[in-house]
């Protein structure tokens, strides 16, 4: 059984193609059901996000399965294969495992270390698993991927630090005020940036959102759409005295919040800290206001610097995360390879058991006069002998994690015990049962 991954991501395909390939519109469940009917593979999971569409399957013949999946993608989405194939990547075994682990830990994301992807992968697997499209291999693979994602998050700082301006503003506000619950946020200007930052603040459970704009209707519209209260521009001073966080994002050509205004406000506020986020260009707040005690003034450039620093920090953390990924890939492959021995182990046990049964049948006439107790004892003794003979080889086989060794051992066993050939059981019984006989002492 082989692992195969076929997909596109933001690294290989333009957004137009990814949009057309996105399964979420047409239904991932429909795709899974359609894929389940294909004879080319056994287990399937479809990971479909806005940055990637990836199909993970288990198959016997990777080339065959790959062609089938490519055809499926092209048919399902109605994209000619010559437009699709150049953007597709296919990975098997080690590469496929590494890929999924990197995706789950955010290493392959558009924004390095972005944390949502782990949830999306979990959701994708959950759906496939509910529809009965996954089996032993994909179950283990995805659960390992979740563990890798978790390990990377807790052991490295890959996902730490805000990487967008509005998140950076929220993170700073939290460093100043701790919990944002019950805090008052004042937004000046009804533009898009101010709105976005206000929405992020609201997600933190702020107490009150006040919006003021020179055009009263704009303020009212924004207040209606995101839930806040609009105030007239003239009551700015009162609102400033109440606010903990001031977001300015107006289109004014000169600063509208002066040093003097803030200084005056700080007196009424009795030095309660004020965090000013000036995301307007040109700036809305006089830079010197930031020198006032207990005033933290960040403009758009400051926030962008923070974002850049965080991104470069994530870059340095990436190598730590890659180490974890390759360690976990090793562990997973070890498990996978040891599973390669399972058919051989089963066949071996089966063979031994059938020999035992055959011998018991052959001796049936001689055993007939024995009491039921004694017969049960004979049965028990022979069973134990077979068990004991098999313990060591079974354990040895299952403990090998290197694929080549597993193959070599399996091959040797197959030949030595004729596991794959269809020779008559009688022949084998004779060759094997001969040397095994002296061991048939009464079991203590």
């Amino acid at each position, binding site marked *: 059984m082989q692992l195969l991954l076929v997909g596109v991501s933001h690294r290989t395909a333009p957004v137009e193609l990814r949009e057309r390939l996105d399964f979420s519109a047409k239904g991932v469940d429909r795709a899974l059901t359609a894929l389940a009917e294909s004879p080319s593979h056994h287990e399937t999971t479809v990971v479909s996000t806005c940055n990637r569409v990836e199909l993970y399957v288990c198959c016997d013949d990777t080339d065959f399965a790959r062609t089938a999946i490519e055809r499926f993608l092209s048919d399902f989405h109605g994209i000619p294969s010559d437009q699709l194939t150049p953007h597709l990547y296919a990975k098997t075994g080690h590469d496929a495992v590494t890929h999924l682990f990197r995706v789950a830990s955010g290493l392959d994301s558009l924004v390095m270390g972005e944390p949502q992807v782990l949830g999306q992968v979990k959701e994708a697997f959950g759906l496939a698993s509910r529809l009965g499209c996954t089996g032993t291999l994909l179950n283990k693979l995805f659960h390992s991927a979740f563990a890798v994602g978790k390990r990377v998050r807790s052991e490295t700082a890959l996902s730490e630090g805000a990487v967008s301006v509005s998140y950076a503003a929220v993170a700073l506000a939290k*460093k100043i005020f*701790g*919990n944002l619950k019950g805090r008052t946020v004042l937004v000046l200007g009804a533009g898009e940036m101010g709105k976005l930052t206000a929405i992020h603040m609201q997600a933190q459970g702020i107490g009150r959102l006040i919006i003021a704009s020179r055009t009263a209707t704009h303020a009212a519209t924004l207040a209606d759409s995101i839930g806040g209260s609009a105030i007239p521009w003239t009551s700015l001073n009162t609102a400033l005295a109440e606010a903990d966080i001031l977001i300015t994002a107006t289109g004014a050509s000169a600063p509208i919040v002066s040093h003097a205004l803030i200084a005056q406000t700080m007196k009424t506020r*009795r030095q309660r*800290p004020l965090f000013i986020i000036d995301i307007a260009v040109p700036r809305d707040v006089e830079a010197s206001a930031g020198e006032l005690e*207990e005033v933290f003034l960040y403009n758009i450039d400051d926030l962008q610097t923070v974002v850049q*620093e965080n991104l470069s920090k994530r870059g340095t953390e990436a190598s730590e995360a890659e180490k974890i990924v390759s360690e976990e890939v090793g562990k997973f492959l070890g498990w996978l390879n040891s599973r390669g021995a399972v058919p051989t182990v089963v066949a071996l046990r089966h063979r031994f058991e059938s020999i035992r049964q055959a011998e018991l049948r052959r001796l049936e006439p001689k055993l007939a006069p024995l009491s039921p107790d004694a017969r049960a004892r004979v049965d028990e003794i022979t069973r134990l002998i077979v068990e004991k003979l098999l313990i060591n080889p079974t354990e040895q086989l299952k403990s090998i994690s290197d694929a080549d060794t597993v193959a070599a051992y399996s091959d040797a066993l197959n030949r030595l015990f004729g596991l794959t050939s269809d020779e008559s059981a009688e022949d084998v019984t004779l060759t094997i049962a001969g040397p095994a006989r002296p061991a048939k002492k009464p079991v203590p």
Partner: protein
Amino acid sequence: MNAILLILYAVAGAAYAVQFARRSFGTSRMATVLLVLAAFAHTFVIGMETMRLGHVPSASATSAISTFVWLLALSYLYVELTTGERAMGVFILPLLIALQTIPAFSPTLEPRSALLESPWFGVHVSSLLFAYASFALAAVLGITYVLQFKEIKAKHLGFFYARLPSLNVLDDMNLRAVKIGWLFLTVGLITGGIWASQLQPSGAMSFGDPKVFVALLCWAVYSFELYAQRAIGWRGRRAAWLSAVGFGIVLLNFVPVSYFFTTSHQF
């Protein structure tokens, strides 16, 4: 005994430094476990001494310091385990280690005297030691507040920004520690006064002693901090500085004054 405790604290201190720098979960937990072990061993030592003497060892400057280290370690552990914030450990541990070197290298015999049998003595000394432990925590919280404040204000979000709790949390914890400390300081000073007046009804010892004088100075500083916070909104950085200055005076009282200046009041 105190030397072994010093080693235990030093090992815990190293673990706190490593976990602060690397921020890995494994070392963080290990640091806490090591400190708990050190505090546990210290509890044992102090318990044995208490059984031997019949009161908490605090009647000589050296044993008072050891008891103070013990109380501070316990108070810090209480804060850490209730808030889950480990960042302060890296500031508290050096203080514990530095103070513990004194009892570790200069063991003194605890004087036994009938003077110390009074229940007032026990309340007096243990209240003050507990107050000082609270002030030590407050000072560390204040210092970390200032470090973090400077980074945010200067828009340079670096080492401390990534590791310390928010300014608001530090400020709240600082004020809480000061309130608790102030309460115990007040109790300690009052019981000290009662005790002294029982021993020497003239009260001659009290105000002339540098130790008493400096303790009253501390009381004034912390009272002002609490008053200023309520009345004129001195929170945040100003409160943080006051906590640091206040504990500077406490330390002054504790080590140099105890050893070199005071005559009648060694603990």
